[in-house]
């Protein structure tokens, strides 16, 4: 298979979206760095992608909560990737997060602090080089806080704002910053939930969309995987707070 000499860094490689997207890049001829917490699980994905696609795949241990190790992690990356995609996320249990401080902090740090700091560091290196694409996966849950998942949603809202600011700052530097909001996706995270089929994507669909926007000719900065989310969230955002607080959405 034809290799094209470009490298992707996938952060959160053992998630369903991470796996599908890294495979998609591998098939398109990219080489891959896979980063994740559990070495054996990341190695399993690396073997799979390398076998299926013929890509050269390297494995890197990374815990998104261990921010002190980020510099060392990035220092060991060679070559510096052309594109980085972060799909790390933790939905958590809202009711538990309401009572347990440490648990709530873990959900917030996993969805906001870790990804934001890591992508921020990568942005510095990309800016110094003068090129690169940064893809952060945020969530429609960050578009407006809801009773059922606002701890997760607030952290994602933070990430959305962070990515927006980063994009604003780097707009003339040759570095692209994309915000992807997958909406509902059929993955382990949503296992057992009843999902509306019109709003629910497969991991493969997310992978295709990310690749098409990040590597194709598109100039979009904020991407909903299924287009229907954009008008839907516009409506939901525009409901006055006095009414919204009484709704069960």
């Amino acid at each position, binding site marked *: 298979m034809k290799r094209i000499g470009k490298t992707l860094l996938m952060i959160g490689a053992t998630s369903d979206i991470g796996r599908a997207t890294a495979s998609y890049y591998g098939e398109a001829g990219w080489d891959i760095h896979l980063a994740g917490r559990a070495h054996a699980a990341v190695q399993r994905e690396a073997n799979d992608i390398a076998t299926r696609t013929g890509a050269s795949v390297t494995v890197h241990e990374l815990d998104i909560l261990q921010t002190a190790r980020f510099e060392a992690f990035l220092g060991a990356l060679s070559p510096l990737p052309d594109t980085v995609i972060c799909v790390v996320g933790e939905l958590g249990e809202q009711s538990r997060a309401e009572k347990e401080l440490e648990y709530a902090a873990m959900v917030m740090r996993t969805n906001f602090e870790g990804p934001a700091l890591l992508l921020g560091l990568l942005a510095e290196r990309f800016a110094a080089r003068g090129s690169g694409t940064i893809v952060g996966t945020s969530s429609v849950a960050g578009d407006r806080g809801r009773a059922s998942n606002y701890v997760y949603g607030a952290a994602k809202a933070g990430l959305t704002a962070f990515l927006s600011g980063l994009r604003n700052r780097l707009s003339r530097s040759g570095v692209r910053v994309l915000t992807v909001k997958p909406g509902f996706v059929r993955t*382990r995270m949503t296992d057992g939930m009843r999902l509306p089929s019109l709003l629910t994507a497969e991991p493969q669909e997310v992978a295709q969309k990310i690749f098409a926007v990040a590597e194709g000719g598109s100039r979009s900065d904020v991407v909903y995987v299924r287009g229907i989310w954009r008008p839907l969230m516009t409506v939901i955002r525009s409901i006055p707070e006095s009414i919204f607080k009484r709704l069960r959405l």
Partner: protein
Amino acid sequence: MEGWGRYPRHESEVLHCRVPEALGRFVASRPGLIARGNGRSYGDAAIGENSTLMCGGLNRMKSFDAADRVLTAEGGVMLSDVLRSLVPRGCFPPVVPGTKFVTIGGMVASDVHGKNHHCDGGFGDHVNELKLVTANGEILTCSRSQNAELFSATVGGMGLTGVIAEATFRLRQIETGWIAQKTTVAENLAEALKALRQSEEATYSVAWIDCLSKGASLGRSLIFAGEHATPDQVRETLRADLFPSPNSAALTLPLDMPAWLLNKASVSAFNELYFRAGIRKSAKPMLVHWDNYFFPLDRILRWNRLYGKRGFIQHQCVVPDADALQVLSSILDRFAQSGKGSFLAVLKRLRGSAGLLSFAAPGYTLALDLPATQEVLRLLDEIDELVVKAGGRLYLAKDARQSRLTFECGYPRLDAFKVLRRATGADRRFNSRLAKRLGI
């Protein structure tokens, strides 16, 4: 829970396994469990007596040695994925069944055969090594030299010796993704058997039978012989891509078809058209895309809805050469007389196989799709008697209804299989509805 034929239906607890390390824990925690891949066995083979372990998440490939063309993959990897990633690299699985939507574990457990069984044997013949999760949760490596008995029981063993966590097998080298196909017309069954014997030098051969034709043209058939085409053959005619990509599915049957749709008139009209098209094609050799040649039915997703809610039965027997003409004539005759013609009737040559419970035996194999009605079930019982008398047997991956007696007569190495199951404790852990029905 149901198989691909949607008959019979049983209750079974569903468990999902996502990482190989968890297999042992699942096995140890549940008696009466069976592993299930993509659910393409027709009857009750992949429905657990108590629990069914879904192995679709064990779908990672592990390594591919390009020089030797040897692939190691987890049991839940789909054949369609193997084809997608390796056909472009000039490699083809050694044996493929009639659908690509099966898992590697399922292919081993059913020791599937293809149109090349007469040349290359079954899938199990090309497996170098298996990783098997046994009754006590241990992972054992099995091959012809290591745990050899367990290996020969697991190939074709319908998942009743353990869960197939991983398989290593060798692929064949191909120069193009095209098949050079020759069609021969046979006016009756005797001619069809002869034509199949004569096309034995061809790597692939299969006959499609018009099973509503009667009298002098009973068993009229089209025989398709195929070879992997050379680049020269492809360049001459097509100038096409040497390794074409898989087809995308053309159609999904959106809902159950009404039961009256498949009747004598509609099936015989289809058969007539198909036969005439075959006669036209028989004039000259042609090139066929690998996906269309091996997996024509895969273009219609969920084609099992064609038979409506009541479901259907695929009856596949193998009959030794000696009585083949007479027995197969009687079978076709009974169906032709009853008007219960099959929408799909396929005839192939088989040779022997190594697995203790493997289906393939030297002779001719006939496969028929039939609606699961009371009348058909009665008719099949009569047909089983003919098969047993001739020393034949039925394919377990497709079986939904054969009697214990029919099964016991057809599988002479059954006792050795049962002894091994007892010795390894598998009889107390791994049990499907099929195993229970047949007393395995």
